[in-house]
Protein backbone atom coordinates (compact mmCIF):
# COMPACT_ATOMS: atom_id res chain seq x y z
CA UNK A 1 0.00 0.00 0.00
CA UNK A 2 2.72 2.42 1.05
CA UNK A 3 4.70 1.35 -1.99
CA UNK A 4 1.79 2.28 -4.25
CA UNK A 5 1.57 5.72 -2.64
CA UNK A 6 5.32 6.34 -2.78
CA UNK A 7 5.79 4.98 -6.27
CA UNK A 8 5.13 8.15 -8.32
CA UNK A 9 7.88 9.92 -6.38
CA UNK A 10 10.39 7.15 -6.91
CA UNK A 11 9.51 6.56 -10.54
CA UNK A 12 8.01 9.79 -11.86
CA UNK A 13 8.21 8.70 -15.50
CA UNK A 14 4.98 9.82 -17.16
CA UNK A 15 4.67 6.81 -19.40
CA UNK A 16 5.24 4.38 -16.55
CA UNK A 17 2.58 6.10 -14.47
CA UNK A 18 0.18 6.03 -17.41
CA UNK A 19 0.74 2.29 -17.85
CA UNK A 20 0.20 1.75 -14.12
CA UNK A 21 -3.05 3.71 -14.42
CA UNK A 22 -4.15 1.47 -17.26
CA UNK A 23 -3.24 -1.59 -15.20
CA UNK A 24 -5.24 -0.27 -12.25
CA UNK A 25 -8.25 0.37 -14.53
CA UNK A 26 -8.03 -3.11 -16.05
CA UNK A 27 -7.66 -4.58 -12.56
CA UNK A 28 -10.99 -3.06 -11.56
CA UNK A 29 -12.82 -4.73 -14.44
CA UNK A 30 -10.92 -7.98 -13.80
CA UNK A 31 -11.78 -7.94 -10.08
CA UNK A 32 -15.44 -7.58 -11.05
CA UNK A 33 -15.17 -10.64 -13.26
CA UNK A 34 -13.37 -12.39 -10.41
CA UNK A 35 -16.45 -11.96 -8.22
CA UNK A 36 -18.65 -13.20 -11.05
CA UNK A 37 -16.49 -16.12 -12.23
CA UNK A 38 -14.16 -16.88 -9.36
CA UNK A 39 -16.68 -16.50 -6.57
CA UNK A 40 -20.10 -17.27 -8.05
CA UNK A 41 -18.86 -19.48 -10.90
CA UNK A 42 -20.51 -17.63 -13.79
CA UNK A 43 -18.45 -17.39 -16.96
CA UNK A 44 -18.98 -14.08 -18.75
CA UNK A 45 -17.23 -13.14 -21.95
CA UNK A 46 -19.18 -9.93 -22.20
CA UNK A 47 -17.55 -7.66 -19.61
CA UNK A 48 -16.34 -5.29 -22.36
CA UNK A 49 -19.97 -4.36 -22.92
CA UNK A 50 -20.30 -2.95 -19.40
CA UNK A 51 -16.83 -1.42 -19.63
CA UNK A 52 -17.88 0.30 -22.86
CA UNK A 53 -21.23 1.45 -21.45
CA UNK A 54 -19.37 2.98 -18.50
CA UNK A 55 -16.81 4.67 -20.72
CA UNK A 56 -19.32 6.25 -23.09
CA UNK A 57 -21.75 7.19 -20.31
CA UNK A 58 -19.01 9.04 -18.45
CA UNK A 59 -17.74 10.68 -21.64
CA UNK A 60 -21.23 11.80 -22.60
CA UNK A 61 -22.14 13.07 -19.13
CA UNK A 62 -18.97 15.16 -18.75
CA UNK A 63 -18.35 16.32 -22.34
CA UNK A 64 -21.92 16.90 -23.50
CA UNK A 65 -23.85 17.63 -20.30
CA UNK A 66 -21.11 19.14 -18.16
CA UNK A 67 -21.73 16.78 -15.26
CA UNK A 68 -18.88 16.86 -12.71
CA UNK A 69 -16.51 13.90 -12.96
CA UNK A 70 -17.26 12.22 -9.61
CA UNK A 71 -20.97 12.08 -10.49
CA UNK A 72 -20.17 10.84 -13.99
CA UNK A 73 -17.99 8.11 -12.50
CA UNK A 74 -20.82 6.88 -10.29
CA UNK A 75 -23.28 7.40 -13.16
CA UNK A 76 -21.13 5.19 -15.40
CA UNK A 77 -21.21 2.42 -12.82
CA UNK A 78 -24.96 2.75 -12.40
CA UNK A 79 -25.59 2.82 -16.17
CA UNK A 80 -23.59 -0.40 -16.56
CA UNK A 81 -25.39 -1.97 -13.60
CA UNK A 82 -28.79 -1.09 -15.08
CA UNK A 83 -27.72 -2.50 -18.45
CA UNK A 84 -26.74 -5.70 -16.66
CA UNK A 85 -30.30 -6.06 -15.39
CA UNK A 86 -31.14 -6.92 -19.00
CA UNK A 87 -29.00 -9.99 -18.39
CA UNK A 88 -30.95 -11.16 -15.34
CA UNK A 89 -33.07 -13.61 -17.32
CA UNK A 90 -29.92 -15.33 -18.57
CA UNK A 91 -28.47 -15.94 -15.11
CA UNK A 92 -30.59 -19.08 -15.16
CA UNK A 93 -28.19 -20.30 -17.81
CA UNK A 94 -24.97 -22.01 -16.79
CA UNK A 95 -21.57 -22.77 -18.29
CA UNK A 96 -21.13 -22.45 -22.02
CA UNK A 97 -24.73 -21.25 -22.59
CA UNK A 98 -24.22 -18.33 -20.24
CA UNK A 99 -20.85 -17.50 -21.81
CA UNK A 100 -22.34 -17.42 -25.32
CA UNK A 101 -25.25 -15.24 -24.18
CA UNK A 102 -22.88 -12.70 -22.61
CA UNK A 103 -20.82 -12.77 -25.79
CA UNK A 104 -23.97 -11.94 -27.74
CA UNK A 105 -24.66 -9.01 -25.44
CA UNK A 106 -21.10 -7.77 -25.89
CA UNK A 107 -21.48 -7.84 -29.69
CA UNK A 108 -24.79 -5.95 -29.54
CA UNK A 109 -23.26 -3.21 -27.38
CA UNK A 110 -20.25 -2.96 -29.71
CA UNK A 111 -22.53 -2.55 -32.75
CA UNK A 112 -24.56 0.05 -30.89
CA UNK A 113 -21.42 2.05 -30.05
CA UNK A 114 -20.19 1.77 -33.63
CA UNK A 115 -23.43 2.74 -35.33
CA UNK A 116 -25.13 5.32 -33.12
CA UNK A 117 -22.92 8.21 -34.25
CA UNK A 118 -25.14 10.91 -32.74
CA UNK A 119 -24.46 9.52 -29.29
CA UNK A 120 -21.04 7.90 -29.44
CA UNK A 121 -19.30 9.43 -32.41
CA UNK A 122 -19.40 6.07 -34.14
CA UNK A 123 -16.26 4.95 -35.92
CA UNK A 124 -14.81 8.47 -35.66
CA UNK A 125 -14.60 7.97 -31.96
CA UNK A 126 -15.64 10.15 -29.04
CA UNK A 127 -13.35 13.14 -28.71
CA UNK A 128 -13.06 16.05 -26.32
CA UNK A 129 -13.45 14.11 -23.08
CA UNK A 130 -12.37 16.43 -20.25
CA UNK A 131 -9.77 15.48 -17.70
CA UNK A 132 -10.99 14.01 -14.47
CA UNK A 133 -11.43 16.52 -11.71
CA UNK A 134 -12.06 16.04 -8.02
CA UNK A 135 -13.50 18.80 -5.83
CA UNK A 136 -12.56 21.50 -8.32
CA UNK A 137 -9.01 20.19 -8.72
CA UNK A 138 -8.30 19.10 -12.29
CA UNK A 139 -6.04 16.06 -12.52
CA UNK A 140 -3.64 17.45 -15.09
CA UNK A 141 -0.56 15.29 -14.69
CA UNK A 142 0.08 11.58 -14.86
CA UNK A 143 0.81 11.51 -11.13
CA UNK A 144 -2.57 12.77 -9.98
CA UNK A 145 -4.50 10.55 -12.39
CA UNK A 146 -2.35 7.66 -11.17
CA UNK A 147 -3.59 8.37 -7.66
CA UNK A 148 -7.19 8.50 -8.88
CA UNK A 149 -7.03 5.20 -10.77
CA UNK A 150 -4.99 3.32 -8.20
CA UNK A 151 -7.17 4.82 -5.45
CA UNK A 152 -10.41 3.58 -7.00
CA UNK A 153 -8.72 0.24 -7.67
CA UNK A 154 -7.69 -0.04 -4.04
CA UNK A 155 -11.23 0.76 -2.85
CA UNK A 156 -12.68 -1.92 -5.13
CA UNK A 157 -10.06 -4.37 -3.87
CA UNK A 158 -10.84 -3.73 -0.21
CA UNK A 159 -14.59 -3.82 -0.78
CA UNK A 160 -14.37 -7.17 -2.56
CA UNK A 161 -11.93 -8.55 -0.01
CA UNK A 162 -14.67 -8.06 2.60
CA UNK A 163 -16.98 -10.40 0.68
CA UNK A 164 -14.78 -13.39 1.44
CA UNK A 165 -15.77 -14.91 4.73
CA UNK A 166 -19.11 -13.06 4.82
CA UNK A 167 -22.58 -14.54 4.58
CA UNK A 168 -22.90 -13.21 1.02
CA UNK A 169 -19.48 -14.56 0.05
CA UNK A 170 -20.19 -18.00 1.50
CA UNK A 171 -23.52 -18.17 -0.31
CA UNK A 172 -22.10 -17.35 -3.76
CA UNK A 173 -19.24 -19.75 -3.15
CA UNK A 174 -21.77 -22.41 -2.28
CA UNK A 175 -23.64 -21.72 -5.53
CA UNK A 176 -20.43 -22.19 -7.52
CA UNK A 177 -19.58 -25.46 -5.82
CA UNK A 178 -23.03 -27.04 -5.85
CA UNK A 179 -26.12 -25.09 -6.86
CA UNK A 180 -28.50 -27.93 -5.87
CA UNK A 181 -27.10 -28.13 -2.36
CA UNK A 182 -27.25 -24.33 -2.12
CA UNK A 183 -30.94 -24.35 -3.09
CA UNK A 184 -31.62 -27.11 -0.57
CA UNK A 185 -30.12 -24.81 2.08
CA UNK A 186 -32.60 -22.09 1.18
CA UNK A 187 -30.29 -19.92 -0.93
CA UNK A 188 -32.07 -18.01 -3.70
CA UNK A 189 -29.61 -19.05 -6.38
CA UNK A 190 -30.90 -16.98 -9.29
CA UNK A 191 -31.21 -13.83 -7.18
CA UNK A 192 -27.65 -14.03 -5.85
CA UNK A 193 -26.23 -14.88 -9.26
CA UNK A 194 -27.97 -11.78 -10.62
CA UNK A 195 -26.52 -9.68 -7.81
CA UNK A 196 -23.05 -10.84 -8.79
CA UNK A 197 -23.78 -9.87 -12.38
CA UNK A 198 -24.82 -6.39 -11.30
CA UNK A 199 -21.78 -5.96 -9.02
CA UNK A 200 -19.38 -7.03 -11.78
CA UNK A 201 -21.10 -4.73 -14.28
CA UNK A 202 -21.00 -1.79 -11.86
CA UNK A 203 -17.24 -1.99 -11.39
CA UNK A 204 -16.70 -2.62 -15.10
CA UNK A 205 -18.62 0.64 -15.62
CA UNK A 206 -16.36 2.42 -13.13
CA UNK A 207 -13.31 1.07 -14.97
CA UNK A 208 -14.77 2.30 -18.27
CA UNK A 209 -15.26 5.78 -16.86
CA UNK A 210 -11.70 5.94 -15.53
CA UNK A 211 -10.43 4.74 -18.89
CA UNK A 212 -12.39 7.42 -20.75
CA UNK A 213 -10.83 10.18 -18.66
CA UNK A 214 -7.36 8.63 -18.72
CA UNK A 215 -7.04 8.37 -22.50
CA UNK A 216 -9.68 11.07 -23.29
CA UNK A 217 -10.59 9.49 -26.61
CA UNK A 218 -12.86 6.49 -27.14
CA UNK A 219 -13.14 4.35 -30.25
CA UNK A 220 -15.51 1.41 -30.76
CA UNK A 221 -12.57 -0.91 -31.33
CA UNK A 222 -11.60 -0.54 -27.67
CA UNK A 223 -14.80 -2.39 -26.81
CA UNK A 224 -14.94 -5.39 -29.09
CA UNK A 225 -15.37 -8.86 -27.69
CA UNK A 226 -11.57 -9.12 -27.74
CA UNK A 227 -11.63 -6.77 -24.78
CA UNK A 228 -13.97 -9.18 -23.02
CA UNK A 229 -11.56 -11.99 -23.77
CA UNK A 230 -8.67 -9.90 -22.44
CA UNK A 231 -10.50 -9.34 -19.16
CA UNK A 232 -11.19 -13.06 -18.94
CA UNK A 233 -7.53 -13.84 -19.67
CA UNK A 234 -6.49 -11.52 -16.82
CA UNK A 235 -8.64 -13.51 -14.42
CA UNK A 236 -7.54 -16.89 -15.70
CA UNK A 237 -3.79 -16.32 -15.83
CA UNK A 238 -3.95 -14.40 -12.55
CA UNK A 239 -5.79 -17.28 -10.89
CA UNK A 240 -9.53 -17.87 -10.83
CA UNK A 241 -10.90 -17.04 -7.38
CA UNK A 242 -8.07 -14.70 -6.33
CA UNK A 243 -8.48 -10.92 -6.18
CA UNK A 244 -4.71 -10.41 -6.10
CA UNK A 245 -4.56 -12.74 -9.09
CA UNK A 246 -6.90 -10.47 -11.04
CA UNK A 247 -4.49 -7.58 -10.47
CA UNK A 248 -1.46 -9.68 -11.43
CA UNK A 249 -3.30 -10.83 -14.54
CA UNK A 250 -4.15 -7.22 -15.46
CA UNK A 251 -0.50 -6.25 -15.00
CA UNK A 252 0.59 -8.97 -17.40
CA UNK A 253 -2.10 -8.41 -20.03
CA UNK A 254 -1.86 -4.59 -20.01
CA UNK A 255 1.77 -4.11 -19.01
CA UNK A 256 3.46 -6.65 -21.23
CA UNK A 257 2.39 -5.23 -24.62
CA UNK A 258 3.18 -1.67 -23.48
CA UNK A 259 6.75 -2.61 -22.69
CA UNK A 260 7.21 -5.17 -25.40
CA UNK A 261 6.08 -3.09 -28.35
CA UNK A 262 7.87 -5.59 -30.54
CA UNK A 263 5.22 -8.22 -29.90
CA UNK A 264 2.53 -5.72 -30.94
CA UNK A 265 0.13 -7.60 -33.17
CA UNK A 266 1.29 -10.92 -31.80
CA UNK A 267 0.13 -10.13 -28.29
CA UNK A 268 -2.94 -12.35 -28.47
CA UNK A 269 -0.60 -15.13 -29.59
CA UNK A 270 1.59 -14.51 -26.54
CA UNK A 271 -1.45 -14.42 -24.26
CA UNK A 272 -2.65 -17.65 -25.80
CA UNK A 273 0.67 -19.28 -24.99
CA UNK A 274 0.60 -17.91 -21.42
CA UNK A 275 -2.97 -19.15 -21.06
CA UNK A 276 -2.03 -22.68 -22.10
CA UNK A 277 0.97 -22.60 -19.76
CA UNK A 278 -1.29 -21.46 -16.91
CA UNK A 279 -3.67 -24.33 -17.55
CA UNK A 280 -0.76 -26.77 -17.58
CA UNK A 281 0.52 -25.48 -14.25
CA UNK A 282 -2.89 -25.80 -12.68
CA UNK A 283 -5.93 -23.64 -12.09
CA UNK A 284 -4.34 -21.39 -9.49
CA UNK A 285 -2.68 -19.14 -12.05
CA UNK A 286 -0.05 -16.56 -11.18
CA UNK A 287 -1.42 -16.00 -7.69
CA UNK A 288 -0.91 -19.67 -6.80
CA UNK A 289 2.45 -19.69 -8.59
CA UNK A 290 3.60 -16.69 -6.54
CA UNK A 291 2.39 -18.35 -3.34
CA UNK A 292 4.19 -21.59 -4.21
CA UNK A 293 7.38 -19.73 -5.10
CA UNK A 294 7.14 -17.83 -1.83
CA UNK A 295 6.78 -21.09 0.11
CA UNK A 296 9.66 -22.72 -1.77
CA UNK A 297 11.95 -19.73 -1.16
CA UNK A 298 10.94 -19.69 2.48
CA UNK A 299 11.63 -23.42 2.79
CA UNK A 300 14.96 -22.99 1.01
CA UNK A 301 15.95 -20.11 3.27
CA UNK A 302 14.94 -22.08 6.33
CA UNK A 303 16.96 -25.06 5.14
CA UNK A 304 20.03 -22.91 4.55
CA UNK A 305 19.72 -21.22 7.92
CA UNK A 306 18.91 -24.39 9.84
CA UNK A 307 21.29 -26.63 7.93
CA UNK A 308 23.80 -27.26 10.74
CA UNK A 309 21.07 -28.30 13.18
CA UNK A 310 19.21 -30.32 10.57
CA UNK A 311 22.29 -32.32 9.57
CA UNK A 312 23.16 -32.95 13.21
CA UNK A 313 19.69 -34.33 13.81
CA UNK A 314 19.87 -36.48 10.70
CA UNK A 315 23.32 -37.89 11.57
CA UNK A 316 22.46 -40.56 14.17
Amino acid sequence: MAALIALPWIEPDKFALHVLSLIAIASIAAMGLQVLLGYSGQLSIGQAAFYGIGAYTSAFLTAKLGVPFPLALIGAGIAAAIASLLMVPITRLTGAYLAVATLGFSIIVYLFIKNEEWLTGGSYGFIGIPRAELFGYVLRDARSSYYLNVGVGAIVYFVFARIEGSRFGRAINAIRQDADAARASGIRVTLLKSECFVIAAFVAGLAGSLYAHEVRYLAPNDFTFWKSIEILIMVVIGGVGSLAGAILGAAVVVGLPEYLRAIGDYRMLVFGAILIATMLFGEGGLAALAATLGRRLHALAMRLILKPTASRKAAP
Partner: protein
Amino acid sequence: MSAATHGEGLLEVRAVTRRFGGLLAVDAVDLAVRRGSVHGLIGPNGAGKTTLLNLIAGVYRVSSGFLRFATDDITRHSTAKRARAGIRRTFQNLKLFGEMTALENVAIGLHAQTHAGFFDAVLSTPRHRREERGITDRSMAVLQFVGLAGLAQARADSLAYGHRRLLEIARAIVARPALLLLDEPAAGLNVTEAAHVSDLIARIRDDGTTVVLVEHHMDVVMRVSDEITVLNYGRRLAHGTPAQIQEDPVVIEAYLGRAGETDRAQA
Protein backbone atom coordinates in the same frame (compact mmCIF):
# COMPACT_ATOMS: atom_id res chain seq x y z
CA MET B 1 -53.39 -47.22 10.29
CA SER B 2 -53.54 -46.93 14.04
CA ALA B 3 -50.22 -45.08 14.36
CA ALA B 4 -51.45 -42.27 12.15
CA THR B 5 -54.05 -41.26 14.72
CA HIS B 6 -51.34 -40.03 17.13
CA GLY B 7 -50.03 -36.48 16.77
CA GLU B 8 -50.94 -33.94 14.14
CA GLY B 9 -49.94 -34.23 10.48
CA LEU B 10 -46.92 -32.14 9.46
CA LEU B 11 -46.61 -33.29 5.87
CA GLU B 12 -49.35 -34.62 3.69
CA VAL B 13 -48.62 -36.12 0.30
CA ARG B 14 -51.83 -36.89 -1.50
CA ALA B 15 -52.21 -38.85 -4.74
CA VAL B 16 -48.82 -37.63 -5.93
CA THR B 17 -47.71 -38.86 -9.34
CA ARG B 18 -44.52 -38.17 -11.22
CA ARG B 19 -43.86 -39.31 -14.76
CA PHE B 20 -40.52 -39.27 -16.57
CA GLY B 21 -41.52 -39.73 -20.19
CA GLY B 22 -43.30 -43.07 -20.27
CA LEU B 23 -42.06 -44.13 -16.84
CA LEU B 24 -44.31 -43.76 -13.80
CA ALA B 25 -41.66 -43.23 -11.13
CA VAL B 26 -44.20 -42.34 -8.45
CA ASP B 27 -47.78 -43.46 -8.96
CA ALA B 28 -50.60 -41.85 -6.93
CA VAL B 29 -48.75 -42.15 -3.61
CA ASP B 30 -50.29 -41.01 -0.32
CA LEU B 31 -48.09 -40.28 2.64
CA ALA B 32 -48.96 -38.69 5.98
CA VAL B 33 -46.06 -37.73 8.23
CA ARG B 34 -46.89 -36.95 11.85
CA ARG B 35 -45.15 -34.11 13.64
CA GLY B 36 -42.41 -35.41 15.91
CA SER B 37 -42.08 -38.81 14.27
CA VAL B 38 -39.46 -40.63 12.24
CA HIS B 39 -41.14 -41.91 9.10
CA GLY B 40 -39.24 -44.63 7.30
CA LEU B 41 -39.57 -44.97 3.54
CA ILE B 42 -38.41 -48.31 2.21
CA GLY B 43 -38.68 -50.37 -0.92
CA PRO B 44 -36.54 -52.18 -3.47
CA ASN B 45 -34.23 -50.27 -5.80
CA GLY B 46 -36.24 -48.26 -8.29
CA ALA B 47 -39.32 -48.23 -6.06
CA GLY B 48 -39.47 -44.42 -6.24
CA LYS B 49 -38.19 -43.53 -2.77
CA THR B 50 -35.65 -40.93 -3.84
CA THR B 51 -38.04 -39.53 -6.46
CA LEU B 52 -40.68 -39.08 -3.75
CA LEU B 53 -38.10 -37.37 -1.54
CA ASN B 54 -37.18 -35.06 -4.43
CA LEU B 55 -40.86 -34.27 -4.96
CA ILE B 56 -41.20 -33.32 -1.29
CA ALA B 57 -38.00 -31.23 -1.44
CA GLY B 58 -39.14 -29.51 -4.64
CA VAL B 59 -36.36 -30.73 -6.92
CA TYR B 60 -39.04 -32.18 -9.19
CA ARG B 61 -42.56 -30.87 -9.64
CA VAL B 62 -45.43 -33.31 -9.31
CA SER B 63 -47.14 -34.42 -12.51
CA SER B 64 -50.34 -34.52 -10.49
CA GLY B 65 -51.33 -34.59 -6.85
CA PHE B 66 -50.97 -32.33 -3.86
CA LEU B 67 -48.40 -31.52 -1.15
CA ARG B 68 -49.28 -29.86 2.14
CA PHE B 69 -46.66 -28.79 4.69
CA ALA B 70 -48.01 -27.58 8.07
CA THR B 71 -50.89 -25.40 6.88
CA ASP B 72 -49.49 -24.46 3.45
CA ASP B 73 -50.05 -25.89 0.00
CA ILE B 74 -46.44 -26.20 -1.21
CA THR B 75 -47.16 -28.12 -4.41
CA ARG B 76 -45.83 -25.26 -6.60
CA HIS B 77 -43.11 -23.91 -4.30
CA SER B 78 -39.45 -23.87 -5.38
CA THR B 79 -36.76 -25.86 -3.56
CA ALA B 80 -35.33 -22.73 -1.94
CA LYS B 81 -38.77 -21.62 -0.77
CA ARG B 82 -39.47 -25.02 0.80
CA ALA B 83 -36.05 -24.98 2.44
CA ARG B 84 -36.77 -21.52 3.87
CA ALA B 85 -40.13 -22.76 5.14
CA GLY B 86 -38.37 -25.51 7.10
CA ILE B 87 -37.91 -28.54 4.82
CA ARG B 88 -34.25 -29.53 4.71
CA ARG B 89 -32.59 -32.58 3.22
CA THR B 90 -29.44 -34.59 2.72
CA PHE B 91 -28.34 -36.15 -0.55
CA GLN B 92 -27.80 -39.79 -1.35
CA ASN B 93 -24.62 -38.92 -3.29
CA LEU B 94 -23.21 -36.37 -0.85
CA LYS B 95 -23.33 -32.77 -2.05
CA LEU B 96 -20.97 -30.92 0.23
CA PHE B 97 -19.14 -27.71 -0.59
CA GLY B 98 -15.77 -29.41 -0.91
CA GLU B 99 -13.56 -26.31 -0.89
CA MET B 100 -15.10 -24.99 2.30
CA THR B 101 -14.36 -26.00 5.87
CA ALA B 102 -16.77 -28.19 7.80
CA LEU B 103 -17.81 -25.13 9.80
CA GLU B 104 -18.55 -23.07 6.66
CA ASN B 105 -20.60 -25.94 5.22
CA VAL B 106 -22.79 -25.91 8.31
CA ALA B 107 -22.95 -22.10 8.25
CA ILE B 108 -24.49 -22.27 4.76
CA GLY B 109 -27.42 -24.07 6.35
CA LEU B 110 -28.19 -20.87 8.29
CA HIS B 111 -28.31 -18.67 5.20
CA ALA B 112 -32.08 -18.34 5.21
CA GLN B 113 -32.21 -17.51 8.92
CA THR B 114 -29.76 -14.62 8.57
CA HIS B 115 -29.98 -11.39 6.65
CA ALA B 116 -26.68 -9.59 6.17
CA GLY B 117 -26.10 -8.85 2.50
CA PHE B 118 -23.34 -7.47 0.34
CA PHE B 119 -23.34 -4.00 1.91
CA ASP B 120 -23.41 -5.33 5.48
CA ALA B 121 -20.32 -7.37 4.66
CA VAL B 122 -18.52 -4.44 3.02
CA LEU B 123 -19.33 -1.99 5.80
CA SER B 124 -18.99 -4.68 8.51
CA THR B 125 -22.14 -3.38 10.16
CA PRO B 126 -22.95 -4.35 13.77
CA ARG B 127 -25.73 -6.52 12.39
CA HIS B 128 -23.21 -8.36 10.23
CA ARG B 129 -20.76 -8.93 13.08
CA ARG B 130 -23.50 -10.02 15.45
CA GLU B 131 -24.90 -12.43 12.88
CA GLU B 132 -21.48 -13.88 12.08
CA ARG B 133 -20.90 -14.59 15.78
CA GLY B 134 -24.31 -16.23 16.05
CA ILE B 135 -23.68 -18.30 12.90
CA THR B 136 -20.33 -19.54 14.21
CA ASP B 137 -21.70 -20.39 17.66
CA ARG B 138 -24.73 -22.24 16.35
CA SER B 139 -22.69 -24.09 13.68
CA MET B 140 -20.14 -25.21 16.27
CA ALA B 141 -22.93 -26.44 18.54
CA VAL B 142 -24.36 -28.55 15.70
CA LEU B 143 -20.94 -29.97 14.79
CA GLN B 144 -20.65 -30.95 18.44
CA PHE B 145 -24.11 -32.53 18.28
CA VAL B 146 -23.20 -34.81 15.34
CA GLY B 147 -19.72 -35.51 16.73
CA LEU B 148 -17.54 -33.46 14.36
CA ALA B 149 -16.49 -30.59 16.63
CA GLY B 150 -12.82 -31.52 16.33
CA LEU B 151 -12.96 -31.23 12.54
CA ALA B 152 -14.60 -27.79 12.28
CA GLN B 153 -11.66 -26.25 10.41
CA ALA B 154 -10.99 -29.24 8.11
CA ARG B 155 -11.85 -28.86 4.45
CA ALA B 156 -14.98 -30.83 3.63
CA ASP B 157 -13.34 -32.74 0.78
CA SER B 158 -10.57 -33.90 3.11
CA LEU B 159 -12.99 -35.60 5.52
CA ALA B 160 -13.42 -39.35 5.75
CA TYR B 161 -16.55 -40.71 4.07
CA GLY B 162 -18.43 -41.37 7.32
CA HIS B 163 -17.66 -37.85 8.53
CA ARG B 164 -18.95 -36.35 5.29
CA ARG B 165 -22.26 -38.15 5.83
CA LEU B 166 -22.47 -36.61 9.30
CA LEU B 167 -21.53 -33.16 7.95
CA GLU B 168 -24.43 -33.31 5.48
CA ILE B 169 -26.78 -34.00 8.35
CA ALA B 170 -25.26 -31.15 10.37
CA ARG B 171 -25.81 -28.71 7.50
CA ALA B 172 -29.40 -29.88 7.12
CA ILE B 173 -30.35 -29.56 10.81
CA VAL B 174 -28.48 -26.39 11.79
CA ALA B 175 -31.52 -24.21 11.07
CA ARG B 176 -33.76 -26.43 13.24
CA PRO B 177 -36.02 -27.40 10.33
CA ALA B 178 -39.52 -28.69 11.02
CA LEU B 179 -38.95 -31.50 8.54
CA LEU B 180 -35.72 -33.30 7.68
CA LEU B 181 -35.50 -35.55 4.63
CA LEU B 182 -32.67 -38.06 4.92
CA ASP B 183 -31.75 -39.86 1.70
CA GLU B 184 -29.84 -43.00 2.70
CA PRO B 185 -27.81 -41.40 5.50
CA ALA B 186 -26.21 -44.74 6.41
CA ALA B 187 -25.30 -45.81 2.86
CA GLY B 188 -21.76 -47.17 2.75
CA LEU B 189 -21.27 -46.97 6.51
CA ASN B 190 -20.03 -49.84 8.64
CA VAL B 191 -22.13 -51.29 11.50
CA THR B 192 -20.71 -49.00 14.19
CA GLU B 193 -21.14 -45.87 12.05
CA ALA B 194 -24.67 -46.91 11.07
CA ALA B 195 -25.54 -47.36 14.75
CA HIS B 196 -24.20 -43.86 15.43
CA VAL B 197 -26.44 -42.50 12.64
CA SER B 198 -29.49 -44.33 14.09
CA ASP B 199 -28.77 -42.79 17.45
CA LEU B 200 -28.30 -39.36 15.83
CA ILE B 201 -31.65 -39.61 14.03
CA ALA B 202 -33.40 -40.40 17.30
CA ARG B 203 -31.76 -37.40 18.95
CA ILE B 204 -32.77 -35.14 16.04
CA ARG B 205 -36.39 -36.27 16.46
CA ASP B 206 -36.18 -35.73 20.22
CA ASP B 207 -35.00 -32.17 19.49
CA GLY B 208 -38.29 -31.54 17.70
CA THR B 209 -37.47 -32.18 14.06
CA THR B 210 -39.72 -34.57 12.15
CA VAL B 211 -37.76 -36.98 9.95
CA VAL B 212 -38.52 -38.78 6.70
CA LEU B 213 -35.91 -41.50 6.31
CA VAL B 214 -35.07 -43.34 3.11
CA GLU B 215 -32.66 -46.13 3.99
CA HIS B 216 -31.58 -49.58 2.88
CA HIS B 217 -29.99 -50.56 6.20
CA MET B 218 -32.98 -52.45 7.65
CA ASP B 219 -31.61 -52.42 11.18
CA VAL B 220 -31.40 -48.60 11.06
CA VAL B 221 -34.92 -48.21 9.66
CA MET B 222 -36.53 -50.69 12.05
CA ARG B 223 -34.71 -49.26 15.05
CA VAL B 224 -35.55 -45.57 14.66
CA SER B 225 -38.77 -45.41 12.65
CA ASP B 226 -42.09 -44.75 14.37
CA GLU B 227 -43.93 -45.57 11.16
CA ILE B 228 -42.88 -47.05 7.87
CA THR B 229 -44.27 -46.70 4.36
CA VAL B 230 -43.24 -49.33 1.81
CA LEU B 231 -43.04 -48.41 -1.86
CA ASN B 232 -42.86 -50.84 -4.74
CA TYR B 233 -42.86 -49.95 -8.46
CA GLY B 234 -43.79 -46.38 -7.58
CA ARG B 235 -46.88 -47.37 -5.58
CA ARG B 236 -47.55 -47.53 -1.89
CA LEU B 237 -47.47 -51.17 -0.90
CA ALA B 238 -47.97 -50.93 2.85
CA HIS B 239 -47.90 -48.58 5.80
CA GLY B 240 -47.63 -49.22 9.54
CA THR B 241 -45.38 -49.55 12.55
CA PRO B 242 -42.06 -51.40 12.16
CA ALA B 243 -43.61 -54.44 13.87
CA GLN B 244 -46.61 -54.41 11.52
CA ILE B 245 -44.38 -54.03 8.45
CA GLN B 246 -42.20 -56.95 9.47
CA GLU B 247 -45.27 -59.15 9.85
CA ASP B 248 -47.00 -57.97 6.67
CA PRO B 249 -47.07 -60.92 4.23
CA VAL B 250 -47.34 -58.60 1.20
CA VAL B 251 -44.18 -56.76 2.23
CA ILE B 252 -42.33 -59.94 3.00
CA GLU B 253 -43.16 -61.33 -0.38
CA ALA B 254 -42.40 -58.20 -2.40
CA TYR B 255 -39.42 -56.85 -0.58
CA LEU B 256 -38.00 -58.60 2.43
CA GLY B 257 -38.79 -61.91 0.72
CA ARG B 258 -35.84 -64.02 -0.29
CA ALA B 259 -32.98 -61.90 1.03
CA GLY B 260 -35.10 -60.69 3.92
CA GLU B 261 -34.79 -63.57 6.35
CA THR B 262 -31.52 -62.34 7.88
CA ASP B 263 -32.73 -58.73 7.95
CA ARG B 264 -35.80 -59.73 9.89
CA ALA B 265 -33.77 -61.83 12.26
CA GLN B 266 -31.50 -58.84 12.98
CA ALA B 267 -34.34 -56.41 13.41
